[in-house]
Structures are given as structure tokens and as C-alpha cells.
């Protein structure tokens, strides 16, 4: 059996194909489905939006400070901190207990508010951590339930491409909702050059790759190096082993260096000196930066003299920001960037080793639309409508988030994610916003198919399906989602096989699984049931047995792949 081409394409363009969505694609056609996905209607309330508004997460901690945490969160000015108590003594710290079910209230907060509240003395760490936690939870909800699946995959792609580890600094966690919303999501379908700048000037990247403290001289090279090597030209254009001097790099003398060497990194780092965050940092003893959590250019830290980047001269004493902007232009519009990013997108959506002809076609579209505000829409259309998109099932291994979401989506389960889910994803090798090095997660099977990762995902699905999570994390609803007219062992097995793996499994695999299902074990004794016999288990036994069954379907080799 071979899965249909619609299934293959849909499974790659979503966090898991469902039979309902598959029917829709068959009805309206693939290109109509793609067009719909490329223009998400932000105003429409889809299932994910509803779930996010209704989602509540517990927060519990003890806090010692001058003010109740609720007042600090509301941004109340700390006047009372200096106030004297009744007996004439200075107000003392008090103990507060916080324990409540709270909605995802940080997601919509503006950046300056997120930044300023956490910048108060004694601000509880649990509240800082909560901000990024809400984004993690919302990300999982959207992956499972959003109508705009291509957008969600792209958001995931950009977060990985511009990897930031939220553990690098508390402040990153605090402003994470604004970064996810106003930088990554805002530009996910936009223009790469604009996205690149929004990332470069966002507090999370300024902190993570340390440019916020880069000043002349010597500059901090961390951001400049990864800008070339990871964000734009890619390691394939790092030519340091070939050329020690900039003049030797092909094209450099014409101002069109084919690649970069360490000297370009040094110069670019100088260009970005003074690019820092508006984080209220002190300087010159009594002055401090603005504190709205945004971007700040500090001219005193900038190295103003002439530079040469990728063979292009930057004159001395340019206006504020001009040096850095010139480097972003050079990197974003470099032909190597078009190829590198196109290949990376094809790799993410289609195959570990994408067809180079496809990469060239996509790079052409990338370059033609380099200055279009919707450059990435054009690029994604080229990828999604390519014949390669629907061919050759199994050229990608699902990431753990894709694996779990595809399981939830196919079963129709009700997942209410909380920290256990995030922790279990990490155990499988996917560290949501917490990948350490700036590379982001690798995107090939070599990484995702490790024995540990494979085993942990089998166990993850099994624990979801058999009540292995405490509390209200998941309701599988397997009985409710089994149609009333499916009564026999064979009918029920077929129903779930068709939902989880439509057209995906060889017939002998289906038979093996069905045979397992029919041999229900009771008190340690396996009892064989005929295929057309009606199931007579009580509800809780059947729910558990069905849970084990769908978990086994999810553990098949085919279900690990896209």
C-alpha cells in the first residue's frame, strides 16, 4: 500500500494529516488548500484561538518582597516601598503566597510592559518563567489545533533558524511573548531582510548572542559570526580554510565576495558595535539606557571607522546604524543566502536531501522577490506546489512535536498542554525554545532517529493514550470517537487504523496490529477474539485496550515518518 499523494503533501504541510483535512484537500484541490494557508485570516477564531483563550495553567509560589506579586505584575509604581509604616519604621518585606489557575495572560501584553515589570527589584522568578511557559503552551496548542498549519510550521522553522535559548537569560524569558508575536510571527510570511533585522534588533537575540554588550574595541564577535554562518550565507560559504586574506576570496575585488572568512566576521562585529537593548542598563555612572525592552543604539560604543565586509568598503563615520544596516543588506541579499535558505526550507518541508533542481527553482523565486513584502509567501508557494512535495513518502522523520501533534490530531484527542508535555518533548530530543547552541535543532534523520529519542516517543504516545499523565492534560475520547455502528473487533481496529494511518500501512502490518488487538489479555491470560465477534468489554477496559492499540499504531515505523 502506498499513501496517496494528497496524504504525503498534507502530512508535510501540517503537524499531521487528519482524515477530515484529507477529505477537504480532495474536495477543493491541493492548490486551493495551499492558497488558503498562505493567507491566514488572523481575525477568524479557529479552534486554537478558542482553546488558547480558555486555557488555564496553575501557578504556585511563595514570594518575599515589599509588594504583592499581583501589584508588581500590574506595574504599580513602587512608591509604597519607601513609605514608612505606622510605627515610623521603614516598610519591611512581607511573605506572599500565590496559588491560582490563570489564563495565558502574557501573550497579548506589549513588549514594554513585559520588560518593565520584570525589571523591578524582587520580581518573582516564577512570573518571569511563566511568560515563556505560556508561549510554549500556546505553541503546542496551535500546532495541534490551528487551522493555519503552514504558518505554524513556518513559525517553528524561523524559531529554529534564528535559534534563541530562553535559558540564556531571564530577561529573554520575560519578553518572549512579544518576540514570538511581534518578530517571528509577524514576519513569518513576510520579507527575509525585514525578519533578519527584527531578529537582530530584538532583545532575545541581542542577549543570546551577546551583541548587547559589544563595544569598540575589541567587539564581541558572537552575533556577527552566526549572522553569516547560520542566519544568512551558511557554513557552506565559510571559506576560511581556503583564503587567509580577503583579496583572495573569489569576487571580493569586485565587491561580490562569494563567501566569508574570519576577517569578515571581525569587520561585521565592528559594524554592530553599539547595537544594544533598551534594557535600562547603566552607563557613565549616572546615565542609563531607555527601558522599553526594545532596540537601542548607543553611539559611544560604536566603532565608527572604515570597514570592509564581503569585499565592500564601508566608509568611516557613517550615520547611526548605517554600518550594521549595510552588513544586514549584504548578508540578506547575498546569492549564497538565497540558496542556503531555500535549501533549508526544502529540507524542512520535503526531504532531508532535497533535490538540487528544486532548490534552484526556489532560490530563483527567493531572489526575484527579495524586496517584496511577502517574499516568503512566494517562496512557500513554490515549495508547496512543487511536485516533490507530494512524492516519496518517508523522506522526513517527524520531530517529536510533529509526532505528538499528529497523534493528537489523528485521534481527535483533547490535549491541554502543561509542563509535563514540554518536558517529555525535551526527553525525545526537541527542546522547545531551549536548544543550547545557535544552530537550532538539526533537521535530518541522523538526529531525530536516535534509539533514545525513538523509545521516548513511543512511551510518550503510550502514556498519553493510557492515562499515564496525572490530571487533566489529555482526554483521548477514544470510545466517544468510535462510531456507534463499529461493533466488532475488526471494525473497531479498522476504524482506528484508518484514522491514524490512512493508506500508510502494508496489509501484513495492519493484520499484525489487528491480531494484537483481538488478543485481549485478561488477568495475564490472552483471550483470542474472532474478527467479527462483537466487543463485549466494559468501557474502562475497552478504553485502556484501545489506548494501548492506538499507541502501538503510533509506534509503527511508518508513523514516525513524513
Amino acid at each position, binding site marked *: 500500500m502506498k499513501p496517496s499523494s494528497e496524504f504525503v503533501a498534507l502530512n508535510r504541510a501540517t503537524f499531521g494529516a487528519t482524515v477530515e483535512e484529507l477529505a477537504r484537500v480532495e474536495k477543493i484541490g491541493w492548490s486551493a488548500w495551499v492558497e488558503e494557508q498562505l493567507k491566514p485570516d488572523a481575525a477568524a477564531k479557529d479552534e486554537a484561538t478558542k482553546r488558547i483563550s480558555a486555557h488555564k495553567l496553575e501557578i504556585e509560589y511563595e514570594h518575599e518582597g515589599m509588594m504583592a506579586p499581583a501589584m508588581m505584575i500590574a506595574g504599580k509604581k513602587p512608591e509604597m516601598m519607601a513609605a514608612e509604616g505606622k510605627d515610623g519604621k521603614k516598610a519591611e518585606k512581607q511573605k506572599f503566597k500565590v496559588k491560582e489557575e490563570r489564563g495565558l495572560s502574557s501573550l497579548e501584553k506589549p513588549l514594554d510592559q513585559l520588560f518593565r515589570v520584570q525589571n523591578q527589584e524582587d520580581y518573582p522568578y516564577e512570573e518571569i518563567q511563566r511568560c515563556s511557559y505560556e508561549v510554549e503552551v500556546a505553541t503546542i496548542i496551535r500546532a495541534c489545533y490551528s487551522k493555519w498549519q503552514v504558518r505554524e510550521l513556518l513559525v517553528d522553522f524561523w524559531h529554529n533558524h534564528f535559534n534563541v535559548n530562553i535559558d540564556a537569560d531571564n530577561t529573554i524569558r520575560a519578553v518572549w511573548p512579544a518576540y514570538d508575536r511581534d518578530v517571528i510571527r509577524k514576519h513569518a510570511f513576510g520579507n527575509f531582510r525585514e525578519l533578519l533585522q527584527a531578529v537582530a534588533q530584538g532583545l532575545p537575540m541581542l542577549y543570546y548572542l551577546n551583541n548587547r554588550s559589544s563595544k569598540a574595541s*575589541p567587539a564581541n564577535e558572537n552575533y556577527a559570526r552566526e549572522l553569516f554562518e547560520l542566519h544568512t550565507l551558511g557554513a557552506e560559504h565559510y571559506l576560511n580554510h581556503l583564503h587567509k586574506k580577503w583579496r583572495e576570496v573569489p569576487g571580493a575585488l569586485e565587491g561580490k565576495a562569494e563567501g566569508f572568512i574570519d576577517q569578515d566576521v571581525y569587520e561585521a562585529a565592528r559594524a554592530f558595535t553599539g547595537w544594544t537593548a533598551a534594557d535600562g542598563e547603566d552607563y557613565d555612572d549616572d546615565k542609563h539606557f531607555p527601558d522599553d525592552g526594545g532596540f537601542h543604539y548607543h553611539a559611544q560604543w560604536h566603532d565608527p571607522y572604515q570597514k570592509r565586509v564581503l569585499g565592500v568598503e564601508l566608509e568611516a563615520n557613517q550615520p547611526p546604524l548605517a554600518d550594521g544596516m549595510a552588513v544586514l543588506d549584504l548578508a540578506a541579499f547575498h546569492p549564497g543566502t538565497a540558496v542556503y535558505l531555500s535549501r533549508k526550507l526544502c529540507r524542512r518541508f520535503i526531504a532531508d536531501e532535497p533535490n538540487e533542481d528544486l532548490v534552484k527553482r526556489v532560490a530563483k523565486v527567493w531572489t526575484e522577490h527579495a524586496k517584496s513584502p511577502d517574499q516568503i509567501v512566494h517562496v512557500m508557494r513554490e515549495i508547496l506546489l512543487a511536485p516533490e512535495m507530494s512524492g516519496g513518502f518517508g523522506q522526513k522523520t517527524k520531530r517529536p512535536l510533529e509526532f505528538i501533534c499528529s497523534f493528537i490530531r489523528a485521534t481527535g484527542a483533547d490535549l491541554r498542554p502543561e509542563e509535563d508535555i514540554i518536558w517529555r518533548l525535551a526527553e525525545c530530543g526537541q527542546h522547545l525554545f531551549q536548544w543550547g547552541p545557535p544552530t537550532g535543532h538539526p533537521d535530518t534523520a541522523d538526529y531525530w532517529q536516535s534509539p533514545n529519542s525513538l523509545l521516548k516517543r513511543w512511551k510518550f504516545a503510550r502514556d498519553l493514550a493510557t492515562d499515564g499523565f496525572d490530571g487533566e492534560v489529555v482526554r483521548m475520547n477514544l470510545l466517544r470517537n468510535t462510531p456507534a455502528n463499529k461493533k466488532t473487533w475488526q471494525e473497531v481496529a479498522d476504524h482506528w487504523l484508518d484514522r491514524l494511518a490512512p493508506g500508510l500501512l502494508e496489509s501484513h502490518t495492519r493484520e499484525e496490529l489487528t491480531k494484537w488487538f483481538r488478543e485481549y489479555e485478561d488477568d495475564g491470560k490472552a483471550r483470542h477474539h474472532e474478527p467479527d465477534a462483537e466487543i463485549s468489554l466494559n468501557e474502562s477496559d475497552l478504553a485502556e485496550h484501545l489506548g494501548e492499540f492506538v499507541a502501538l499504531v503510533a509506534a509503527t515505523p511508518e508513523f514516525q515518518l513524513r
Partner: protein
Amino acid sequence: MNRRHFLCSSLAALTGSRITNLTFAADAPQSRDHLLVVLFLRGGCDGLNLLGPANDKDYIAARPEWLRVTDAGKFEGIALKNGYNGIDMRLHKEAGALKELYDSGHLAMIHGCGLQNGSRSHFEAQDMMERGVADHKNISVASGWLTRTIEALSPYGLLPAVAVGGELPDSLLHSKVAVSMSEARDFTYGRENQLALLKRLYEGSESIHRTGKLTLDTITALQSKLPRDGDGKVQDYTPEKGVSYENAGDLGESLRNLAQIAKMDAGLRVATVDYDGWDTHEGQEYRFSELVSEFSRALSTFYSDMSRFHSKMTVVVHTEFGRRLKSNQSEGTDHGYGGVHMVLGSGVNGGKLHGEWKGLANEHLDEGADLAITTDYRTVLNEVLTKRVGLADTKSIFPGFEMKKALGIV
């Protein structure tokens, strides 16, 4: 600097454990084969802050004292015997546990060691080192150097190669036998009939099938090897008497898991452990102290825990590059070149610094900026593989590598 989290977690550093067992017991006769442990310090460990020439004038001129080891004062390093001729090489003050291993004669260190390719890219340098190569045309070598090592050691037992942690590093790339594992006891799945079913479903020939089969076979193997109590319950791991991993951090946790697997008599020959976080471009003083402290304590705790196996085990420590001699204005250091590598084991020619120290004068630096590399990283590995691990030669392990002169580390 607004670094709240720096302040809240430094208690652990104050309670560092001392090695309890430095007069190591004579090795009991072993039936097991040699175990090679490769510990990778990822991010580029600043060798010049870990092991520096305290009185070198170029060193003093290039960095503030809090990014150096000094011969007196707050940053006073630990003096070492048998350093490079006439130079006061000192260890970072948090590396007391390493000093004890060094003095015991089990630990050798090589400064100015690394990948002689000029790369200052973490990922490229790691890619090459883990494939056992040193040039671009070989970066596509399709397997890791430990993958090839394991193949050269076949036939092997149940569990020849383990990557401690979630995933396989590139040094074990495309190994048919290497398993990633955080804790051995986690290797279970469901009931017997579920495992049997999965084994049948993973009988195919694609890579996913091979990985699945390896996973399932490992479950079976480990379940038979894990020590159990009278009721059949898997026992908690107990380190050797007097050894505690309590203050050894995350690295200690990984090494504790490794010690358990190594002692299960499942035929372990190669193990990898990663320790991240050495990319200290900013705020290095605090971060580096924490890293050195945890690394030193974890390594010595593990070594004490493995005391019965010292003659049958070698630990190699490496990093993709050292860091720039001159510090930046972010109170950190950028990517450099030569770094510190280490070899630990009872047959090691330890208590000695190996390799050549050229000094830090501008004319001796690589690109005028970084400590030059005087020892190819494969020189060290070659000695370990041929003299400790038992390979006749390393031609297939390090393609194109010509061993010039052994350093006499082993």
C-alpha cells in the same frame, strides 16, 4: 550586569567535594575489555583561562586578571609540577579536583592542541573532529571516528557503544550499534507481547527499522542485565563506597549514569558524554568558574567511582577550539584556536603537561591572535587507540592522517 540567575545558584560551587579515594586500589584482574570515554566540552573551552602561564607578559597584557590565572591574589591559579620548561603554568582556581588527578599521575594535559584547519566555526570544527578529519574535502566522511573505532573492535557484546544523553553525537554517526541513553532503567516498553509485536513491525531495511530494532534489542538486553532486588524490581544505582555525585551537577548525573552502564558487564567499549556551555563571549569570569568547577568535580567523582576499572579505562577530554588571547569588551573571549585536551587513566603518563608550548608573543600566535596549535588532536587519539584501546593502527579511523611523532602520553 543584570544577571539575577547568576546570583541565585552559586551555592553549589561552595560545597565542592574532594576526591575521597586518591590512593587508588590496585586494579583487580578484569575480564572486560578496555573502555574509551570521550568527553566533549562543547562551545570552545578557554584553555588559556583553564591552564595559563601566570607570569607571561603577553598574557598579562592581553586580558584583565579575572580572565587569567595569576600567581597571587583573588585569581591565583593552582601551581603544577612538570609544566613546560621554566614556565609557571597554573590551573584555574576552581580546578582543584583536576590538580589531584594530575598529582596522582593519572591525568595528562596537552596545551596548544586542536584541529589544524583554521576553522573558528563551532559547528564545522566539531563536525570535522567528530569525523576524525581535519580538512573540508573530508567533512562529508559519512561516519564518526568512534563509529569506525567500534567497527574495528568487533566482534562485540550486547552494548558496545553508548552516548550518554538524549542523542548520538556525530562521533558515533551512522553506527549500527551505538545507542543513546540517559538512564539504563528507562529502557522499557509495555508488556512482552507489545515488544514482540514491535519487533516484527521493525523488521524492514530502512534506517528507521534498523534504529527501531536496535532500540528493541537494547530493551531486551538491558532488562536482563539490570541488577534487581528479590521482588524483581530494578535496583537504584549505588556508587562505590565513599563516592557521591551529589555536588557534581548535570555532568555528574551523566557520568553517574555512565558508571552504572559501564559496570553492568554488557560489553561497553566506547562511551560519549557532552558538556555544553563553554562559548563564553560575555561575562566569562562567573560562567567559566562554574563550568570548571562542575567539570573538575564531576570528572574526579566519576574517576573515583570507576576505581576498580582504572587500568581498563581511558577518558579523553576535548573541545573544538580554544579562545582568543585578547579578551573583548563584553568581559568575555571570542573564538580562538589551540586549546587544552586531556587524557585520564592509570597507564597514562600523567602528572605532566605534554606537547609544545610556543608562548604568546605575537609572532608565535596563529593569525596574530590565537594560541597556535602544536599538537593535532589526532596525535593524542592515535596514542590512546593504539596503546590503550588495542587497535593495531588508526589508518581507517583517521583517513589521511600521518602520525608524526608520538608525544608519549600513554
